[in-house]
C-alpha cells in the first residue's frame, strides 16, 4: 500500500471520529476508537514517506503529519492545565479540533504534493527538526483556534469575567506552546540554512516568508494578551482567525495540484 492510500483510510477514520463525537455519551468510545485508528493509519502514511526518504527529509510531509500531531496532542494529558471548564466546552473544543483534523486530512488527500524527490542537502538533523517543530507548532495553533471557536460559540458576548479569563488562559496556553515550537522550527531552519548554504536566510523557497508571517501573527497575539490592548473576546476572535491565517500562510504552500482520490 502507498502512503497516499493510508491517508485515504485515515481520512475515513477521522470522519468517523468526528461523527462519533456527536453520539450520546455512552457511545463516544466509538469516536475515540476511530480517532486512534485514524492516527495509526496517518502514522503509517507519514512513516512510509520517511521510510522512502531517510536519512533525507521527505518533501512536503508537513501537511500529512499535521492531523497526526493534532491527534496526539488531543489524546495526550493536558500539561499544566488546571482550569475547570464545563463539559459542554470541552466537547465543543474536541469537535472543533476533530473537524480541523478532517479538513486538513481532506486537503492533503485531494491536493498532495508528494512528487518531489528528497534532496541530499536535507541530510542533517536540523532539517528534520525544522519540519518537525513546525508541524508541532502548527498543530498547537490549530488547537488554540479550535478552543477559541468553542469559547466564542458558548460564552456570552463581551463577558469579561473569571470564566472568560480562565477560558482565554486555556487557549493561550496552546498559543504559547505553538509559539515555542514555531520559534524552534525557525531557528533550526536558520541553522540548517547557515550550515548548508552559508547564510541563515535563503531565498530559494518562498515559504520562508510565510513562516515569518505566521511568527509575526502570533507575536502580535501574545502582545495583545500581555498588554490587554484589546478585550478578551477580541483577542479570542484573533486566535480563532489564526486557523484560517495558518491554513493560508502555511498549509497552502504544501498543497499540490488536485488529484482524484479514486
Amino acid at each position: 500500500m502507498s502512503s497516499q492510500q493510508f491517508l485515504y483510510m485515515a481520512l475515513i477514520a477521522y470522519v468517523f471520529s468526528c461523527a462519533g463525537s456527536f453520539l450520546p455519551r455512552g457511545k463516544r468510545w466509538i469516536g475515540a476508537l476511530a480517532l486512534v485508528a485514524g492516527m495509526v493509519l496517518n502514522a503509517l502514511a507519514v512513516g512510509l514517506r520517511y521510510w522512502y526518504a531517510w536519512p533525507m527529509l521527505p518533501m512536503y510531509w508537513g501537511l500529512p503529519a499535521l492531523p497526526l500531531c493534532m491527534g496526539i496532542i488531543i489524546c495526550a494529558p493536558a500539561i499544566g492545565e488546571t482550569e475547570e471548564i464545563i463539559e459542554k466546552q470541552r466537547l465543543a473544543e474536541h469537535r472543533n479540533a476533530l473537524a480541523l483534523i478532517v479538513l486538513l486530512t481532506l486537503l492533503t488527500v485531494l491536493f498532495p504534493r508528494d512528487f518531489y524527490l528528497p534532496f541530499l542537502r536535507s541530510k542533517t538533523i536540523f532539517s528534520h527538526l525544522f519540519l518537525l517543530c513546525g508541524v508541532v507548532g502548527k498543530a498547537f495553533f490549530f488547537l488554540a483556534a479550535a478552543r477559541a471557536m468553542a469559547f466564542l460559540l458558548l460564552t456570552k458576548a463581551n463577558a469579561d469575567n473569571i470564566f472568560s479569563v480562565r477560558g482565554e488562559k486555556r487557549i493561550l496556553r496552546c498559543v504559547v506552546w505553538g509559539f515555542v515550537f514555531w520559534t524552534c522550527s525557525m531557528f533550526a531552519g536558520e541553522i540548517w540554512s547557515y550550515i548548508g548554504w552559508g547564510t541563515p536566510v535563503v531565498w530559494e523557497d518562498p515559504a520562508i516568508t510565510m513562516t515569518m508571517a505566521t511568527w509575526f501573527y502570533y507575536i502580535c497575539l501574545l502582545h495583545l494578551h500581555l498588554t490587554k490592548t484589546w478585550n478578551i473576546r477580541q483577542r479570542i476572535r484573533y486566535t480563532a482567525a489564526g486557523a484560517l491565517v495558518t491554513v493560508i500562510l502555511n498549509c497552502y504552500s504544501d498543497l499540490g495540484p488536485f488529484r482524484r482520490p479514486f
Partner: protein
Amino acid sequence: MSKHPHIGRLLFVAAVLGAVFAINVITLNGCDRTQAEKEQSFLQIGDFTIKRINPDLVEARDGAGRILALIPRNTEPPQGYTPDQIVRVPVRSVVAYGNFDVSALRVLGVLEDVLVGVTTPAEQWYLDDVKRGMASGKIVYLGDSRAVDFERLKRQNPELVLTWDHSAIPMLNQLKIPCVITSTPVAMCLNARMRYVQFLAPFFQREPEAEAFFLKVSDSVRVIRDRTANAGAKPKVMWGDIYEKRVLVEPGNAWVGELVGLAQSDYLFEDVYGTSCIEISVERFLHSGDDADILFTYRTADSGATSKAAIARLNPLLAKVKPLIDGKVYAPLPHYVQSGHRLDEILTEIAAILHPECYPNFELRFFEELPDVDPAQKKEQS
C-alpha cells in the same frame, strides 16, 4: 492610553515614510534615469545579468553566479578583479559546449568568425556553418563534453569557453582561459530563453543583433497568443520521459511550460518548479499521464523514439499513459537541439501541435508525431 493620539499617528507615518525614503535615497540613486537607460545599465536574464559600470567595463554574471569583467581589448584590467575574471571584448575565438550556445553565436552573426571548438563530432552537426568550419579545420572536435581534450582545446587558443561543465573551470583557470557557465540551477523561463542572446551579445559587441532576435521571437509569441486566443478545447500536455527508474520532466517554470500555458493549453507539470529535466516521482508522472492528450518526449529516433510501441517497449510504464493509448506523442527531430537560432519557428511549431485547428496545413520541421507502430512493423501487420 496615549494622550497625544495625533502626534502618535503623525510620528508613525513620518517614521514609515522616513525609513522608506532613507532606504530609497541610499540604494536607489539614479531614479531620474529613463526606464530604457536603467534597463541598459542593468539587464537580468534569468540567472544571468549584464551590468554596465562604465563605457570600458561591463560586468557579466553567469549561470553559476560567477562575475566576469568585459573590457575593451587594449585597456588595463580594472582593480578588484582576478585575472580569470577578465574577458577582452570583442571575443575573437570561442569554444562552445552547448548547442544552444552555438545557435546564439549564429544569431549574433559571429559563428563563422569565432567558433573554434565544439564537443559534438562533425557527422552529428546539421548547421552548415559548423560543418564547413569543421571541414576546413577551423572548428575542431574536442571530444565528448565529459571528456574534453584540454590539450587540443589549448591548441585552438580560445579567448572564451562557453560551457555547462563546472568541472572544466579549474582546468581552464590553469590554462588562463576565461569561461562562462551557461547552465543555471533553475530552468530558463520563456523570457530568459528569448533574451539569452542579449547576455552573450556584449562579449562580441553585437547588441543590435541580439535585440533584433529578441524582437523577432517576441513577435512570434504575440502572434501565437493572438492566434490561439479563440482556440477550442485546451489540450493537456506533458513534456518528459521515464528512463529505467528515473522520471525526468520539464518543470512549469521552464520555457516550454510557459509556452504551453500561453498557447491556451494545460501544462500538467505547471506546479513543478526547478531545474530543466527535473526528477519527480513515477506516481506523479503516471497520474498526469492519465489525463494528458499530448506527450513530448526527450528521446529522438536515435535513442529509440520511433513509434509509440517502441517507447512502450523501452519502458513498459510509459505504455500506461494516455497519449500512448489514444493521444499523440511527439519526438524532437535530430536537428531540433541545434536550432536555437530558429526559436521563433520552434515556438510556432509547438503552438501548431497544440492547436492544429489554428494552424491548418502546418508542416512540422522540428518535431515528428510518432506513429502507433514502427513502419516496418506496420508493413508486416498489413
